[in-house]
């Protein structure tokens, strides 16, 4: 795969990861009062870093976000571990990253348009 497609693929994987994480956060907040519910999170940055370090034929399609249960946060008495503050923090980071990826993708397309001189 060429380098150009590669960047678009990576950005696409990033945008998809942020979309998935937004769903995980929404699910966590919706279950803030559900007894025994453990919060969900999305693993993407670590997988991306691993893919970037491997150096061999890095392709965006291969970096796929995964949903997982952390099971590390302290439990509340009803066995639920959702903290509203943590979820708000994750949401802010998530939307900032999403915005960054969308803008980078827009820039990439503009660059392609410039190259093709579409008026």
């Amino acid at each position, binding site marked *: 795969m060429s380098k150009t497609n590669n960047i678009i693929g990576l950005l696409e994987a990033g945008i998809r990861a942020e979309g998935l994480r937004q769903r995980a956060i929404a699910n966590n907040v919706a279950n803030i009062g559900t007894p025994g519910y453990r919060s969900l999170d999305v693993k993407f*940055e670590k997988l*991306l*870093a691993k893919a*970037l*370090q491997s150096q061999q034929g890095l392709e965006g399609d291969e970096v796929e976000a995964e949903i997982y249960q952390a099971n590390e946060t302290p439990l509340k008495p009803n066995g639920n571990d959702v*903290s509203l*503050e*943590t979820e*708000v*923090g994750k949401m*802010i*980071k998530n939307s*900032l990253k999403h*915005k*960054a990826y969308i*803008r*980078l993708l*827009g*820039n990439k397309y503009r660059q392609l348009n410039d190259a093709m001189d579409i008026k």
Partner: protein
Amino acid sequence: MEIKSSFGPIDIAISGLQAQNKSIAVISSNVANARTSNAGKGEPYRRLEAKFKTDKGQIGGVSLDKITEDMSDFSPVLDPGSPDADKQGYVRMPNVDIATELINLDIATRTYQANAAVLKRYQQMMETSLELLR
């Protein structure tokens, strides 16, 4: 590869929000038990206090260190009819002072607001940076 670095302030502000949340939980326990003359151990309710500590290194968030008991004396109240009364008719009441608790509640609320303000401002700063990507 450090990816999270620019999100440090967000994590710190969130840890502040969580710490003050705990602090408010402790204060509400104190206020709710301000008249609990028997907390189950043959003793009135003992006032609790949340102690915080700095997280890892110099620039870190805050986290709950421990919840300590206030060892000051209980206040005796004359109530001979109470089953908890001693021979002189005095009942030992919790060492909770509502006025102190309300002041602490105000401090905790303000600190929570301050952390929320930092969070919001930092978010705006990042949005400004993202404007450069347009």
